[in-house]
């Protein structure tokens, strides 16, 4: 059953390129159905309504896959964000040829991401991270304008540095442990923890993953790639790609392979805190809407890594919940940015103002997203930040908890300033003719806002079914 998450997108990818009549529309509808089905199936697995080990298909192909509550949460996030991106791209990309290319590349990215979260082997995880990376390079430069090509090029170079570091580390791990399976490596690494080669391998891999996640000081490519990419691609990139190929792999390897010893915990907490501080302070000074959202992403990813580095099961649960919430509210903010860019023609905040009267749904959903990001109850972001700070406090890391709380206030500050500059305030000249964006953008915003509110109000259910089972991964 698990291999269907990878093989069905792969076969769809091949099927989309057979030149049938009206294959473009068929591709669009089939992708929509597939992503929605993935999200629903992941939810059903976590409730326990459907058993994932049922329906074992024939054993011609040996895929080493494993499913646990963290992977289920990832599959749910991938399904929702891919569905939202598909709907938004239908409106934002107007040429038919480019729409077909976009859907194909989206399917490649989803295949890669599904396999990354399900694989139980280090080299397979690396191969599928590269699949997602190649598809995202092309997606960023799909409209071939100068800024986008520059952003994609920067992302490519940093990604290749990360690849070199990770491959060297994999080579060292094969040298010292003999195999690439997670369980074999875990026992091999813990048996040889004094070996300097092992320490070098872990350090190199961590550096590579920090580059991929956009953790300070390896974040250089992130603002350029997010702001220069076409709007539909920014939603996908910020919403799920950076997180799955960077943060999820970091979580999986630190928990199941490297082990959370005290030096790794300190590195993660320090890197997370620096990202929080730097991202928040840099976002305060931005004039471009999408660039500000990019720096905000760096800050929120810092929270996830801070929660992970705490080392306790509660910290891990908080980090995973914040991962899911960030996928939801960051995608929502980028959908709003896409709506503003399409209707008003610019994302420069000095030229915008008073759009809430003209675009009511976009304005309302952006308020919901920013309140959730800043951690205002009863929205979902409040609960995830609360769990992270509680975990830090009970582990005795008081300084980190203080910094996390303080920079929540800074987050609220820069988002309120964005809201005032873009949606409230006086209507700028030249923006009188702006209307609300079409259904393809308002439906995704409404959906994501509803999920943010529901996950916040229905928090006990979400905690019980989706988040608390993740704690037991950490033994």
């Amino acid at each position, binding site marked *: 059953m698990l291999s269907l998450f990878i093989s069905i997108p792969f076969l769809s990818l091949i099927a989309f390129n057979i030149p049938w009549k009206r294959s473009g529309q068929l591709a669009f509808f089939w992708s929509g159905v597939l992503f929605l089905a993935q999200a629903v199936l992941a939810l059903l697995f976590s409730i326990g309504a459907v058993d994932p080990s049922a329906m074992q298909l024939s054993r011609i192909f040996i895929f080493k896959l494993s499913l646990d509550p963290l992977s289920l949460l990832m599959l749910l996030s991938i399904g929702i964000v891919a569905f939202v991106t598909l709907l938004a791209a239908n409106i934002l990309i107007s040429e038919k040829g480019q729409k077909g290319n976009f859907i194909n590349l989206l399917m490649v990215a989803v295949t890669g991401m599904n396999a990354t979260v399900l694989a139980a082997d280090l080299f397979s995880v690396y191969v599928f991270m*590269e699949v997602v990376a190649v598809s995202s390079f092309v997606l960023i430069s799909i409209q071939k304008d100068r800024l986008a090509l520059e952003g994609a090029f920067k992302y490519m170079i940093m990604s290749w540095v990360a690849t070199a570091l990770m491959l060297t580390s994999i080579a060292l791990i094969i040298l010292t442990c003999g195999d690439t399976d997670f369980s074999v490596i875990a026992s091999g690494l813990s048996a040889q923890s004094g070996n300097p080669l092992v320490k070098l391998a872990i350090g190199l891999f961590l550096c590579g993953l920090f580059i991929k996640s956009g953790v300070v000081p390896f974040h250089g490519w992130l603002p350029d790639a997010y702001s220069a990419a076409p709007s539909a691609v920014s939603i996908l990139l910020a919403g799920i790609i950076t997180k799955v190929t960077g943060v999820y792999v970091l979580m999986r390897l630190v928990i199941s392979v490297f082990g959370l010893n005290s030096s790794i915990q300190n590195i993660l907490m320090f890197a997370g805190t620096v990202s929080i501080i730097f991202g928040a302070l840099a976002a305060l000074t931005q004039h471009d809407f999408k660039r500000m959202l990019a720096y905000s992403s760096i800050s929120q990813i810092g929270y996830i890594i801070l929660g992970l580095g705490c080392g306790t099961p509660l910290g891990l649960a908080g980090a995973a919940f914040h991962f899911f919430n960030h996928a939801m509210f960051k995608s929502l903010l980028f959908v709003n940015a896409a709506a503003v860019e399409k209707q008003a023609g610019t994302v420069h905040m000095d030229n915008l103002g008073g759009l809430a009267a003209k675009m009511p749904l976009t304005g309302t959903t952006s308020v919901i997203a920013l309140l959730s990001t800043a951690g205002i109850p009863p929205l979902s972001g409040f609960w995830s930040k609360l769990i992270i700070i509680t975990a830090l406090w009970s582990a005795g890391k008081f300084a980190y908890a203080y910094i996390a709380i303080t920079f929540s206030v800074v987050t609220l500050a820069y988002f309120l300033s964005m809201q005032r500059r873009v949606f409230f305030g006086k209507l700028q000249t030249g923006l009188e003719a702006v209307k609300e964006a079409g259904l393809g953008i308002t439906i995704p915003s409404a959906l994501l806002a509803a999920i943010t509110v529901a996950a916040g109000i229905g928090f006990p259910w979400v905690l019980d079914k989706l988040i608390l089972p993740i704690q037991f991964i950490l033994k």
Partner: protein
Amino acid sequence: MTTRLLRSVVGLALTSAILSIIIFQLNSPVAAVFELSVCAGLIPVIFITAISFTQRIAKSQLQERRRERLTRFFLLPVIVIIAGLALLRWLKIPALVLPSADGAGDVRLLFWNVRHLDLLGQIVVLLAGAFAVVVLFKEPRK
């Protein structure tokens, strides 16, 4: 600029060929064959194709760029030498226990029978590369 770039590509091909001989001496004939055919054959061809899209720059511009590069990066060899000397002096690598180097499983059997997920990943990467070429190089029909 073009001549010097072509010389770099020839250097890359030569280095890869020597590397493949070294790999062959280390008892990995399959890896040596891949290294030779891909890194010493296919990659230089792709580089030369890309270089054929570039244009030669003027000689005065070339001199200026060389001077600029020298002034910007003259400290780099100094730092590398100092770092190398420091590492030699202070880095103590203890005796490493390496696993036994028997040919544990033929590479071809491993590739086709055990690592199916990686095979799928390679196929998807090739497809993604094909899309990249189509998206980036196809001229829109007017």
